[in-house]
C-alpha cells in the first residue's frame, strides 16, 4: 500500500532544493574567514624547490639522508637508495597494496607519496617488522606463495590489528581488502591474522 498525504507538495516551507542548507553555513563562513585572515597575516616566503634535493627522512627509526627530485616517490627512495625493497612496485597508483608502509603509524602507499612530502614523518617499512608476530604467523600459516604481495600484506595486517587487536574472522574478511594477491593466499592470510589475534601479540 502506498500512502499519500493530503497535498502533492510538501507541507514544509522548506524547498527541497534548499534542503538542509540553512543558516549554518553563514555562521561557518564567519568563523572560517576570520581564522584564515589571522593566518594570512603570518610570515610568508615558502620556498619553491626544483631539481634534486638532499633531504632527511626518518626511516625505521633512523634519520637518513637521501636525494630526491620533486617527482621522486618515497617508494623509489626506499628501494633504490635505502635498499629497503620489501615494499613493491606493482601498480602506479595505490590499488594493489603492495607498497604499503606505515607513515606516522598509519598504513600508506609509498607508491603515491612523494619523497619530499615524507619529510618530518615517521616512516616504517616491512623490514622493521622482522621480529613481529605477523610475519611469523604468515610463515606458520603459509600465507605466501610467490611472496611479491606478502610484505605489503604483512604491513596491512599489522596496521589493521593495531586498530582492531581482537578482530573477529568477519572483521578480518571485511577489513583487509586493500591488498591484491595473484597466487591466492587470502585463505591463509585470514588464518595468519586470526592466529595473531589469538596469540595476543597485538601490543
Amino acid at each position, binding site marked *: 500500500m502506498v500512502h499519500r498525504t493530503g497535498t502533492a507538495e510538501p507541507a514544509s516551507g522548506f524547498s527541497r532544493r534548499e534542503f538542509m542548507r540553512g543558516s549554518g553555513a553563514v555562521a561557518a563562513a564567519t568563523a572560517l574567514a576570520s581564522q584564515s585572515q589571522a593566518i594570512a597575516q603570518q610570515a610568508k616566503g615558502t620556498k619553491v624547490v626544483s631539481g634534486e634535493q638532499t633531504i632527511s627522512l626518518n626511516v625505521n627509526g633512523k634519520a637518513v639522508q637521501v636525494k630526491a627530485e620533486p617527482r621522486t616517490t618515497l617508494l*623509489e627512495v626506499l628501494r633504490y637508495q635505502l635498499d629497503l625493497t620489501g615494499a613493491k612496485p606493482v601498480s602506479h597508483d595505490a590499488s594493489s597494496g603492495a607498497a604499503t608502509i606505515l607513515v606516522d603509524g598509519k598504513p600508506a602507499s609509498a607508491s603515491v607519496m612523494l619523497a619530499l612530502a615524507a619529510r618530518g614523518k615517521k616512516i616504517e617499512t616491512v623490514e622493521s617488522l622482522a621480529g613481529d608476530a605477523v610475519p*611469523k604467523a604468515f610463515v606458520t600459516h603459509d600465507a605466501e606463495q*610467490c611472496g611479491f604481495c606478502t610484505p605489503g600484506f604483512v604491513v596491512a595486517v599489522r596496521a589493521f590489528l593495531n586498530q582492531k587487536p581482537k578482530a573477529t574472522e568477519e572483521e578480518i574478511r571485511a577489513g583487509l581488502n586493500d591488498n591484491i594477491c595473484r597466487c591466492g593466499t587470502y585463505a591463509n592470510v585470514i588464518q595468519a591474522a586470526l592466529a595473531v589475534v589469538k596469540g595476543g601479540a597485538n601490543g
Partner: protein
Amino acid sequence: MAEVSYTWPAKDKTSVLGKRHDRLDGLAKATGAAKYTYDINLKNQLIAKGLGCPHAHCRITTISADAAKKVPGVVHVEILRQAGAEIEWEGELLAVVAAESEGAAAEGVKAMRDALKYEALDVFVTEADLEAAKAAGRTTAGAGSTTLEKEAGDDEDEKEFEKKEIERLLKESAHVVEGFYGIDVITHCCLEPHGSTVEWQDGKLIAHHSTQNVSGTDDQFAQPLGITAGDVTVHCDHIGGGFGSKFQADYWSIAAARIAKETGRPVKLMLDRDQELKLGGSRPSGYIKVRLGADKDGIIKVWDSEHWGTSGASGGAVAQGVVPYVFTPKNLRRVVTNIKTNCAQQRAWRAPNHPQGCAITHVAIDDLAAKMGADSLEIFKKNLGTDDEPGVGGAKPSVYAAEMDIAAKLMDWKAKWHPHGKGPAKGSVVEGLGMAIHTWGGAGHNSTCRLKIYPDGSVETQCGSQDLGTGTRTVMAIVVAETLGLPVEHIKINIGSSKYPESGPSGGSTTVGGVSESHRRAALDALAKIRDLVAAKLEVNADDLVAAGGKIVSTKDAGKSVSWKEACSLIGLKPLEVEGKYVRGMTPTTMSSGGVGGVQMAHVAVDRETGVIKMKKFVAVQDMGLIVSPKQAESQIYGAVIMGIAFALFEQRICDPKTGVFVNAEMATYKLPRLGDIGEIVVELYEPESERSRGVIGLGEPPVISPGGAISNAVANALGVRVPILPLTPQRVLEALAKTPKA
C-alpha cells in the same frame, strides 16, 4: 656397495616426508628480505622503460629518438621497430629508453610517443562474435574431428553420413541441450612484471631475470647477443609470479642487455603494469555452440559442437582435445575455428586449455541436469562410467567417484541442493550449488641435483630449478632430509642459477615430480656411500644400515650406530659429491608418475537485483599421488581455487572494439578478487594408498581447472538461468536475467 632402492618409504614409516613444514624461504619473503629480480639494484645502473605502441594495428611512419634524447637524465635510446613496421597489437614495444631514474625514463618515453606517427589499420578484437570475425576475414579453420560408433557404408558419402548420424542420434535422444557458452581472455597479471636487471662482466652477461626457466634461458639470451650459453648466467632467487608466462628471455630483456653493453652500465628493465598486462601473457578465449543428446537416464550419447576463440595475433583457439572436457561420449563431432585478433599472442596459462574446456563444456552437462530437473551430481556421476568401461579420460572413474562422494559430504550437497532456479529467495538473494571435475598429467620433468655432504656433516644441494611460490625449495629439503634421516633445517638448498645442474622449466606441474626424483636419487646415492663407510667402521653389512633420526643405524642391531656427524667425518677431507639425475621415462620408476583427477563444488549466492555474486563455500578434493609437503600442497589448492574465483567472477581482458586498446590494463581496473571475496574454502587432499603408490605427481595446474565450470553451474542453479560467458559480472548476470524473465 650398499644396495640402493629408488623408492619412497611407506606412509607410516616417514619422519619428514608428508609431514607439515614451514616453507624454507617463508620468513625472508614475509619480512621483505627476499630479493626478487625487481629488487636487484646494481651500482650505477640505468633504468629502462619501453615505449608501447599506442594503437592495436598500425604502420609506423615516423619514429625518432631525438625528443627522448633531449630529456635530462636520458642516457640511451634503442629503437626496436623502425618506420614501415606493421604493429599488430597495442603495447608492443617500439623502443627502449634508458635513463638515470624512473621519472626520466618515463619522460623520455612520453617524448617519443608524442613524436610518434603511424597510419592506423583495421582493428579486430571482438572474437566472441563469430559472425563478425568471419565478416572481418579473421577466421581460419582449426582442428576438428568426428567420431561415431557406427561407420558409414561403403557407398555412403562420409560427411553426409556423419551429418545424418548426428541428427539421428540427437533426434533419438531423450534429452537434448542446445547451448552457447564462453570464457573471455584473461592475463597472467604477475605481480612482479616481466623483466631483468642485466650487467656485463668481462664479456659475460649476468642476467637477473624474473623466470620460471632458470636452466633454459641462458641460450635464449646468448643467441641473439652472439655469445655462447656458457657466457650467460641467469639468476633468479625469487620470482613474483609466472603462471606459465615466464619461460622466455623476452626481447625487451635482450634489448636491456644490448643497452648495458653499449653504455657499459647495468640496466634494469621491468615492464610497466599496463605493459605487463598487455604483453606479459594471456590465456586464449573460448566460445562454443553445442548440441548434446542424452538418454532417459542422462547418459550423454552424442556431442556436436563448434568452438572458437583467439590466442592473439597468430590465431589459435582452445584445443579440441578438451571439448568436451574429461567426458568421452562415443559419438562426437567437433568443429574448431581460430580467430586472429589484434592482441599479443597467448602464453601458457596454468593448465593450458583445461580451464576453458571445463568452463565451456561442464556447463552443458549441468544444463542437461537442469533440463531433466535432476541433481547435477547424479548426472556427473552417471556419466563417469566404470573403471572397465570408462566414460571419462585422465583419472580412473573410481577416483572421480570417490572424490565426488568426499566433496558432496564436505559441501553437504544433498541437504543443500535444489532443482535449478527453485531455491528459496531471501529478499533478492538466491543461492545455488554447482560442480565440475578435472584431470591433468603432471609427470616430472628432467632434473639433476648435485648434492654435497661435507666432512662436518653439513648437506648442500644445487639444482638449476626455481621456486614459483609452490614451495620447491621446501620440497627438495624434505626429500633430502627424509632420505638422510635429518631435519629439514639441516639441508641447504641452492636453486635459481643457470650455473647449477640443469633442471626443467617449472610449467605444467612438472617440477615437484622432477626435483623429487633428482633429489631423492642424489641423496640415496650419497647415503649408499656413507653406509659403506659406516659399515666398514662398524663391521656390519652396509645393506643393514639405514639413516634415521640423525644417525646411521643397523636394522639388525640398534646398538650399532654412529651419529650423522661422525659418519660424515669418515668422508675424508673433500666433500662427498654426487649427482642425482632424472630423465623422463629413463627407467620404470615408482617414485613419480602422472595423471590425476579432482572434483570441485561451489556454493554461491546471487543478488538478482544487482547481479552481484558472492562465494559462500568452495570444496576442492584433489588427488596428486604421493604428497611430499601437504602444507604447501594445500596452499597450492587454496591459491588455485582463488585464481579460479578470479576468472569465474572478476577478471577479463577488455579490449576497446573501436581502437583495440586494452583499456583495463591497470590493477585498479583489471578486476581481481580480494580477501573478502573468497568465502569459505575447504581443501581435501586425496591420498589413499592406491594413489600414493603411484609416486609424486604435480599439483600446480589441476585445482585451477574446475572453478569456472563449478561456479557457473552454481549460479545457474541459483538463478534457473545460465549466464553464458565467464567472468560472470553483474552486467552479464543482469543481461541474462533480462533476456529470460523468471517464470
